């Protein structure tokens, strides 16, 4: 795999993590 592909994979994993944190956890924490 090329470097750009690793970058995309890492960015995707981070984005998925952020989406799930933002919609499922962040709201509960702020209450």
């Amino acid at each position, binding site marked *: 795999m090329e470097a750009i592909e690793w970058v*995309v994979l890492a*960015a*995707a*994993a981070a984005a998925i993590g952020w*989406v*799930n944190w933002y919609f499922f956890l962040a*709201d509960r924490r702020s209450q």
Partner: protein
Amino acid sequence: MTLATARIPVSGMTCAACQSRVQRTLQKQPGVADATVNLMMGNATVSYDPASVTAAALVDAIRNTGYGAELPSVDEDAFREQEERDRRTAEEFRELRTKALVSGVIGAVMMLPMLGLGGMTVMHSPAMLWMQAALTIAVMAWAGRHFYVRAWAAFRHHSADMNTLVAIGTGAAFVYSLIATAAPGFFTSRGVPADVYYEAVVIIIALILTGNAFEARAKRNTAAALRSLVKLQPKTARVLRGDPVVEVDIPVGQVMAGDVVIVRPGERVPVDGTLVAGESAVDESMLTGESLPVSKQAGDRVIGGTINGTGAFRLSATTLGADSVLAQIVRLMRDAQGSRAPIQHLADRISGIFVPVVISIAIATFAAWFVLAEAAPAVRGFAAAVAVLIIACPCAMGLAVPTAVMVSTGKGAELGVLIKGGESLQRAGEVDTIVLDKTGTVTEGRPTVTDVVRGPGRELALGDDEMLRLVASLERSSEHPLADAIVQHATARGLVMGAVEAFASVTGRGATGVVEGRALAVGNAALMADYAVDILPLADDVERLSGAGRTPMYVAIDGVLEGVIAVADPIRATSRAAIARMHALGLEVVMLTGDNERTASAIAREAGIDRVVAGVLPAGKVAEVRRLQEQGRVVAMVGDGINDAPALAQADIGMAIGSGTDIATEAADVVLMRGDLGSAAQAIVLSRRTMRTMKQNLFWAFIYNVVGIPLAAGALFPALGLLLSPVFASAAMAFSSVSVVTNSLRLRRARIA
């Protein structure tokens, strides 16, 4: 703290996620004790402390979430509320249709080059690309504006719905295209063609709006039954007023209780009342489902909204406005149609987590394509990710259950079966045992005297009429239906009744008292035994009468057995067929009665009932229902809403068989407006059909997403080379919601026999 309740109209909600978002926002407001948001009805019912928060602040809180809300008007009644809701839905439909049409035309023009028309090279010149970008912005800002506004409002509240998916999908496609237009070299230098997706963005918006417009219209149709009930309410009434008395036409709202209202042939009865002069046959089919006109004479009750036949009559107005039968039905229907069935919880739970999961799948799709695809990985990955966002449809799941509840309760109202909500509907579909109260349910409820048998030689000492007169004098003080039959019989024979002293009603046995100095005891064998009266001389007669389904009552005067009066309550003409239908549905039919075993068995035999519990006192009905439930049965109890109220409340489903006037009865889950048992069977059939529709809807909504999302992600590409374009994905998404609503609408045409 005294809580106030406000019902706030909310517009712009499209799915279960929208509903839960508004609900959560309201529940978080200070001073709000409870908030329930109703997607189908488009309103929020909020209980709040007026000292801490105002209705205006609640409206503002809803508006901040991106939805429309208005202050509820104070004097809004059920009719006006429905008319207002219809007006809003019609407006929403017209707006969606116009936007869908205009953006569809723009999208079609932009797609011409793809179809080999209009010149590919011309369309891909920089000037044309900028023109397309401008048109796309215009469509997004005008037709698709609400997607972005609501998606942003949802995002700020850490929530996501269908609008989020549409906004991210089209937004990403637009930004990608804009970069390709402004800096094509960025793509070409990396060996990727600088493709644009402007037409896809416009077409996606057009298709989703088309789906929303169809959905709005179909949702409007689900309320058709409620709307036709509202239309039954006449606007004016002709009343007698003034001095000298003259006929004047006044708005229905100004009619007062006690006003004499004139109803001419063919007119709609304007208000509820009691007929005071004239006679006619009235068509009550719109409220009771009863197809034959019902004859009305002085003293009979007529219901506002029904249609007078060929006679003319005058009525004295009774219940008016919000208390009228029609207003009660409309209110009950409105609450029922917006209520939730327990089966919906599953859909709600999935809808709640659906959108973030879909966004995650879309990101994963892009990454997978980027890493695995051999040619143009970024472009293909991008198209697949957009397709995933667009095809995923939480709306179909949100609509699966409420639309079925709405259509089904409406269908029920047409049949004269008022079902009080989604929960009742679901439970009625699970019933396996139906318990019937005998009097007034299986039978007419109007007992009449059929036989008078005298003790040996007694008629020489006391004439038949004299015995009947004394008994009727006693029974006049009793409230038992059998006693009423004797009084009616004596009155019809012109007998003049005397005064009664020391009257006593002995529950489950009969009545005693003194009339004109003579001690009377009228009742069953147990009562006679209490007074040591020998009943042997008439034992054979009693046996014969009981065997024929009549209720014999011994008459003892001054300790001597004078005779037996038999009363029979004829079986309703429709009961036999209805009970056969219940058997065909696999239900066990049980009849409860206070009658003796022999009489009860004879009636049960005639009606085709397989199990009878005789000698049940009024309080024993609850115990009997509970006993059946303890055997693991799901029990429906059919009885009148007043005497049988405790048993109706105990049963899993209480069905009040009514005169069509006691709709408000709290104990009942289902009100049968038509006084025959056939409608109880119809209620069960309708509930079962509705449950089937709900399950079909949920199945298709789930399957659609389970199949659609992997397809859009490109799961079939390695094997078949098949990849779904975002445009097809948007068409499929629009179709899914419409198909669910259409499936629910099929219930309207279902034959419920």
